[in-house]
């Protein structure tokens, strides 16, 4: 905003182990740290989900750590921790903080993020948050039981509400408060970097859609996480300082009168979902940007409707802030308010449809290359559409009365924000791996991984729609209570087997990842013949990215299939007079 000379960060490449790999200021190292944290968290989350699937298929099964089988309250702890770890530590961390940190500065031609120290601080705060969160497993009473939404009042009154609602719940709140602080630091850094550090010639409307998606996601984070932080502080005070923000009077739990009075449990829901709904877009928008980027690259065509894509993402971000009430249709809100939230929610279908049709328009008539990243990007579009369509059902108050808290909801949000975002992360991994590690991943293993995962996630989550429609409630540890639920047991067996096969397929990915890191085919500078700036520097990039030479950008990010040009693409940094004619 002020002088340009002072804005360029030059810091020498560190030499000591700690400064280079642990407390690094280099955005690329911090990006890898975030991705490693997310990868670890994803496997913890998957492991928890397998335990849940085992419990649902074979309730009496004895397991290591669970000599009496998984108790119902332990099942609830698994639900809570699976959701929390996946939403915060994987879906929020990998696509935005991970890939965003690594590639945003490079894609906009900068040497680093705007505030490197803040960047390091934000990663280590996230790490601390994960440590505190995992610590909840090991304290007296174990992990909290309230689901990732930790609805009040049961989350506010301590262990009388269940074993994990004591110290475990307190640690959950502290972990999330730390995560909020870390995300706010990250958001400030991303926005300032995008606004102030773009290189010569890179106007906003020339930015890759990936950079746009990180920018818009950072704006959402900036406005959403402060609200969750305020809710978390109120909840912590209710739990530890005896205040009554969320706990109503005359509340009796397990035959004991709770001393608090006068609080409003619904207030928590408002604060939580005012953050919680934008959070869904924090998870999915980077995937949208990346899918656009990859679909264009491997269709060898410019992205269809670049401007429309930018405006659609902005519209989704804006609408995301005024629809939180659709999570609360059965909270007793006025039907008129519910109707307003319902109409606003369905209006998100418009920008979502713009994006989907633009993706199809990009593919239409393209010279499509079915590489592994392309397959995962196509998988992303498929899952986004499948998950999005069920959203239109849930957005209607009359249908939601029935479908709320059934497996239909579980199917919906797993498809659209869970596995769609995971497919986005995998797209990014396969696409950028050559740049990050200088070697190619195995295409054969990658395609095997794709097909097993793609069929696998549909096999897990599609049947949930049907048992949801049949009235199967979510968060039940087993079906023993009701005959109509027992009739659905075969579906649970099927989903459990599908889950095991799908998780097993992820080890193909891990093997491919580490094998390729050391033994993969050497990658040249631009193996995908892509156009953006990260493909103009060595793989892996040097410490200061552009070796002190800020690149100049001459055109938009998607110049594929340009008539009268020798290659079928023109890179952003190539001056017009150097473009090979042919």
């Amino acid at each position: 905003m002020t002088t340009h000379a002072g804005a360029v960060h030059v810091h020498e490449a560190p030499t000591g182990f700690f400064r280079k790999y642990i407390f690094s200021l280099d955005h690329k190292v911090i990006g890898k740290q975030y991705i490693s944290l997310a990868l670890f968290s994803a496997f913890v989350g998957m492991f928890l989900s397998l335990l849940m699937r085992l419990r649902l298929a074979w309730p009496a099964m004895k397991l290591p750590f669970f000599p009496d089988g998984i108790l119902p309250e332990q099942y609830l702890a698994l639900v809570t921790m699976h959701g929390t770890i996946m939403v915060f530590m994987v879906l929020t961390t990998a696509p935005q903080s991970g890939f965003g940190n690594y590639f945003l500065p490079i894609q906009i031609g900068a040497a680093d993020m705007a505030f490197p120290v803040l960047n390091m601080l934000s990663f280590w705060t996230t790490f601390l948050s994960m440590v505190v969160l995992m610590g909840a497993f090991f304290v007296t009473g174990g992990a909290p039981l309230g689901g990732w939404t930790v609805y009040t009042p049961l989350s506010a009154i301590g262990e009388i509400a269940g074993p994990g609602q004591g110290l475990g719940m307190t640690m959950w709140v502290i972990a999330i408060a730390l995560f909020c602080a870390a995300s706010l630091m990250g958001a400030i850094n991303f926005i300032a970097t995008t606004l102030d550090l773009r290189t010569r010639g890179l106007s906003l409307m020339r930015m890759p859609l990936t950079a746009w998606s990180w920018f818009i996601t950072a704006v959402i984070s900036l406005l959403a996480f402060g609200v969750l932080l305020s809710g978390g502080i109120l909840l912590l005070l209710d739990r530890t300082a005896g205040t009554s923000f969320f706990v109503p009077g005359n509340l009796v739990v397990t035959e004991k009168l709770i001393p608090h009075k006068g609080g409003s449990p619904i207030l928590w829901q408002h604060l939580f979902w005012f953050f919680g709904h934008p959070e869904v877009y924090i998870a999915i928008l980077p995937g949208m940007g990346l899918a656009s980027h990859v679909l264009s690259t491997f269709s060898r065509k410019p992205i269809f409707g670049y401007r429309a894509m930018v405006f659609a993402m902005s519209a989704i971000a804006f609408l995301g802030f005024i629809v939180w009430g659709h999570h609360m249709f059965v909270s007793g809100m006025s039907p008129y308010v519910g109707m307003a939230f319902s109409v606003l929610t369905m209006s998100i279908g418009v920008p979502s449809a713009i994006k989907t049709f633009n993706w199809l328009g990009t593919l239409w008539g393209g010279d499509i290359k079915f590489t592994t990243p392309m397959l995962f990007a196509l998988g992303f579009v498929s899952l986004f559409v499948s998950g999005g369509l069920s959203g239109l059902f849930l957005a209607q108050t009359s249908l939601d009365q029935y479908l709320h808290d059934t497996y239909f909801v579980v199917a919906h949000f797993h498809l659209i924000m869970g596995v769609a975002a995971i497919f986005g992360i995998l797209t990014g991994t396969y696409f950028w791996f050559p740049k990050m590690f200088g070697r190619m991943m195995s295409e054969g293993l990658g395609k095997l991984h794709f097909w097993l995962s793609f069929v696998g996630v549909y096999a897990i989550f599609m049947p949930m729609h049907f048992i949801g429609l049949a009235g199967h409630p979510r968060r039940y540890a087993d079906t023993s209570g009701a005959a109509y639920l027992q009739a659905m047991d075969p579906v649970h067996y099927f989903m459990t087997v599908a889950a095991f096969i799908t998780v097993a397929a992820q080890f193909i990915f891990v093997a491919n990842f580490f094998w390729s890191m050391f033994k993969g085919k050497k990658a040249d500078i631009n193996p995908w013949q892509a156009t953006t700036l990260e493909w103009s520097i060595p793989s892996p990039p040097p410490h200061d990215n552009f070796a002190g030479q800020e690149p100049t950008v001459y055109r938009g990010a998607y110049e594929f299939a340009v008539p009268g040009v020798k290659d079928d693409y023109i890179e952003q940094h190539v001056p017009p007079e150097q473009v090979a004619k042919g």
Partner: protein
Amino acid sequence: MYLTGVSLSLAAILMFFMALASSYIVRKGTGNDWQPIDLPRIMWLNTAILVASSITIEVARRKLIASGDVAAFRNWWAITTALGMLFLGGQIVAWRELAEQGLFLSTNPSSSFFYLLTAAHGAHLLFGLVALLYVALRAAQPAWRRRAIAAEATAVYWHFLDGLWVFLLLLLNFGR
């Protein structure tokens, strides 16, 4: 760039306080146990001190940016720092007055919000004081290149906290 970063952090801080203010209004409206509290008189004096500090920091900023008068800048900056400390001290006196009346964090939702809002604002102001002290100490070094930008960013943050405090005071006074 630093100004961008600070301005962005103000947006996040604003969202945080607006969420608390909304909760204040909701909690007051839905519960039947709200007992209004009279603000300690010293808080009006505190407010005057904080508003005055906003004026002095602006004078300091203009001395530096417009006339390049580093000596005057440092004097006005020191006055601002002192006023900021005085404000925080005054807030603590206000807390002790309430405590003497038997009003603690968990006594009543009104006192809960009173302590929470003043403490949250105070924590942010403490951060601003650290920035003020940092600039005051570094400003003694003649070769410090980022003096102007640091002073400007701190001043923006300080003005914001001043305005935020006036809003919170009005909420606590007229919304009791």
